[in-house]
């Protein structure tokens, strides 16, 4: 009887913080992608990605409002599969990666949307300018992986207006669409 009591008190004590605090995930960067798409002349798109970043998020489907996401990104890792273009895009004509070598997103609030997705509001710092943006996101799935960890995956998209971030607007290329896929390992 005593054992049962101790066990139930212990499990209740353990369960309490578990339900109050969302689970923390560290982004598994081998299964995460920060992709972007920019208009080329108004006729097509250039797609590229940032190869180096790190991030973490907290998520609990029972308490979505407690969720958090943050990403730190190395802007010199820009890659559009063309070295000469990458050099130009990283120069001060565009993102000035020499001066503004990091970009980041830190969420300030997360809300559930009517269609079951997430509206992640946060501060985006890019090209030395910090602006609030809303990322349309959804949880793709979560569960045990075959190697003993628990994983959850998110995908989010947002549009950055170049002028908002103090960047030169050239021709049709006035904005960048970001498409971010994050797979996290629960810590």
């Amino acid at each position: 009887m005593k054992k049962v009591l101790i066990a139930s008190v212990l499990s209740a004590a353990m369960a309490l913080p578990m339900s109050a605090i969302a689970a923390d995930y560290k982004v598994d960067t081998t299964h995460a992608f920060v992709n972007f798409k920019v208009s080329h002349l108004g006729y097509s798109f250039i797609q590229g990605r940032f190869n180096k970043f790190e991030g973490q998020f907290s998520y609990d489907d029972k308490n979505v409002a407690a969720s958090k996401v943050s990403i730190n990104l190395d802007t010199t890792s820009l890659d559009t599969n063309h070295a000469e273009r990458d050099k130009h895009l990283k120069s001060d004509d565009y993102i000035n990666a020499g001066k503004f070598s990091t970009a980041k997103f830190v969420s300030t609030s997360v809300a559930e949307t009517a269609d079951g997705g997430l509206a992640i509001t946060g501060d985006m710092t890019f090209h030395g300018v910090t602006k609030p943006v809303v990322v349309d996101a959804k949880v793709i799935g979560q569960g045990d992986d075959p190697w003993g960890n628990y994983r959850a995956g998110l995908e989010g998209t947002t549009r950055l207006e170049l002028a908002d971030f103090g960047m030169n607007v050239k021709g049709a290329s006035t904005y960048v669409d970001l498409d971010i896929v994050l797979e996290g390992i629960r810590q």
Partner: protein
Amino acid sequence: MSSSLVTYNKLAKLLHWFSAIMVIGLFAAGYWMVDLSYYSEWYQTAPHWHKSFGLCFVVITLGRLIWKLVSNGPSIEGSAFEKKAATYAHYLIYILLFTMFLSGYLISTADGRGIAIFNWIEVPGLGSFIENQEDLAGQVHEYAAYILIGLSGLHALAALKHHFIDKDNTLKKML
């Protein structure tokens, strides 16, 4: 080098003046083209020609070095200091030329792409050896270009000084 010669041989002169035109032309083109607007009609052709002429210049400079080794030329005139300074300046110009060739190649081939020479042939790319290779090679290319054009200017001024002030054979042996 044989001091009995009074002028450089014809091929050495031709290679020297061709190199002068290339150094000045490639510098001017490079200086101008990096600031071209994306919507300029030259945005694609100027770098294409810069790279094509640059790669031709690599071949010609290699040939020039071989010719310099196998042929004879006149000796350098001037004071002991001037002879030493001129010798080192000439070495440095060659080193800077190859720094330009290598860094230029490393910018354009950092993604493994080759470089077309006037659409005749394509020089294969060897890909990336260091992180952010296109940026680092670009900086080397830029700074080495300024040093090379400065040193070339000094080289020309020195030749003019020998011609007009010392009134020696320095400039005439290259004409």
